[in-house]
């Protein structure tokens, strides 16, 4: 290994105990916890592009756990607790900053939903407060809370333990730690098919040849439908572009994270100084990592309404990724109809915050061939039984 490289770039071997498809945040975290918690190190993480170059490189890095339902509180709060110890665990700076998140309410219904969510969060041991407009102003002085605007701020939910982290550092830290434990990372190795024999997944076909595996774990975000289809599995997912943008570097002006469902934007300020903003998905399905410009325009209009101080800021860069959206805004994690093939998908617009939590639980699921209790509610089966985990409210504009 090159002394300056953080992880080994491996040549694919003929077979592995576990093959993970997708070296994004979830794939990396899963590999790390497979090795660390379960002693399974005969693991290859296959990646069609480069390590953590998909949504892991494109998200707006918001971390929070203030979801409505018990099932979601379970997995997201587990993730947040892991985030709180992750820098120490990985021995790498992640710039994890618990600066809090405000979810603004602009209508009476928003207020009712927000108050209900605060109470639900507290019952589940998730920190949450309801703030009136003056309280919002105190947490984030640059938010416009005057009653004169088109959609006045009527209050907000506030989760103080929420925050942001430096996404690239998270990927590098997980890859370094997993690599040190013996995991192989194989980039530019697109999976073109899953070989199923007698109802069991036995190998993956890749652009670099066939790789046999006792267990195959999908973690391919927007491309999950395509990969799963090669094993004959239909998933209730739709792939959409999701855009984000940053401003040029500014002095620190924005001390927290602000999200607004009603006016459709979410904003934080990165450590380096750029304002990071995200929008909603493009309406039409697409695998093109590029969204429509009118989405950006609307998002900027919303941001300006909430933060008049941004009027003189310039957009430095916009980009898009593709996300796998599920019908109930909750992920699909666990066993699949094919033996030894595991699913982790449907995170849509909000997978980053769950990175360590889902890695932990997905590794457990793969190691024991049985869903970890925290992901057990998120089966594919729920679209038959009707036991949905509807998080459209708490998922915000995008999670």
């Amino acid at each position, binding site marked *: 290994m090159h002394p300056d490289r953080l992880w080994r770039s491996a040549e694919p071997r003929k077979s592995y105990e576990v093959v993970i498809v997708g070296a994004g945040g979830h794939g990396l975290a899963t590999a790390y916890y497979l090795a660390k918690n379960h002693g399974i190190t005969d693991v290859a993480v296959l990646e069609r592009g480069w390590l953590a170059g998909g949504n892991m490189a494109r998200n707006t890095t918001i971390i929070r756990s203030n979801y409505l339902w018990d099932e979601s509180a379970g997995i997201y709060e587990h993730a947040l607790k892991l985030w709180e110890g992750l820098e120490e665990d990985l021995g790498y700076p992640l710039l994890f900053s618990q600066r809090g998140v405000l979810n603004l309410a602009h209508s009476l219904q928003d207020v009712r939903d927000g108050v209900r969510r605060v109470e639900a969060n507290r019952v589940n041991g998730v920190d949450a407060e309801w703030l009136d407009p003056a309280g919002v102003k105190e947490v984030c002085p640059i938010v416009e809370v005057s009653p004169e605007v088109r959609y006045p701020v009527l209050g907000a939910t506030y989760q103080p333990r929420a925050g942001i982290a430096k996404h690239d550092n998270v990927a590098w830290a997980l890859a370094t730690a997993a690599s040190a434990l013996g995991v192989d990372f194989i980039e530019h190795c697109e999976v073109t098919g899953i070989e199923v024999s007698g109802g069991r997944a036995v190998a993956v076909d890749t652009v670099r040849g066939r790789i046999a595996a006792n267990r195959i774990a999908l973690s391919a975000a927007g491309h999950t439908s395509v990969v799963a289809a090669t094993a004959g599995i239909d998933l*209730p997912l739709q*792939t959409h572009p999701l855009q984000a943008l940053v401003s040029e570097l500014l002095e620190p002006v924005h001390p927290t994270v602000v999200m607004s469902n009603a006016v459709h934007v979410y904003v934080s300020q990165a450590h380096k100084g750029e304002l990071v903003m995200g929008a909603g998905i493009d309406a*039409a*399905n697409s695998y093109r990592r590029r969204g*429509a410009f009118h989405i950006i325009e609307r998002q900027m209009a919303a941001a300006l309404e909430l933060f008049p101080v941004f009027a003189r800021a310039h957009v430095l860069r916009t980009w898009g990724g593709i996300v796998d959206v599920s*019908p109930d805004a909750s992920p699909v994690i666990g066993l699949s109809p094919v033996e030894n093939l595991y699913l982790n998908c449907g995170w849509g617009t909000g997978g980053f915050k769950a990175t360590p939590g889902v890695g932990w639980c997905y590794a457990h699921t793969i190691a024991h061939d049985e869903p970890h209790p925290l992901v057990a509610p998120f089966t594919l089966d729920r*679209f038959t039984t009707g036991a949905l985990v509807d998080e459209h409210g708490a998922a915000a504009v995008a999670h």
Partner: protein
Amino acid sequence: MLLIPCPWCGARDEVEFHYGGQAHVAYPEDPSALSDEQWGRYLFFRENPEGDFAERWSHSAGCRRWFNVVRDTRSNRIKHVYLPGEPRPVTP
């Protein structure tokens, strides 16, 4: 932004349209005869191809009529536009 050729009004910007998802999804003829699995598939499962996709659009800020489009989801290139009720054109 997509430039979408409405069959009645001609090519217009995407902002004038409303997306309707996958085309040719018929309401089940006898819903109560379906198993839970079949009903779940009707409600929640739609095609999600990386490639040609038959989908519905409504020209909601124009003539307000629905029509179908075959679009390549890799390039967003629109290959066919046709009327509801017509079969999906065969793409070479």
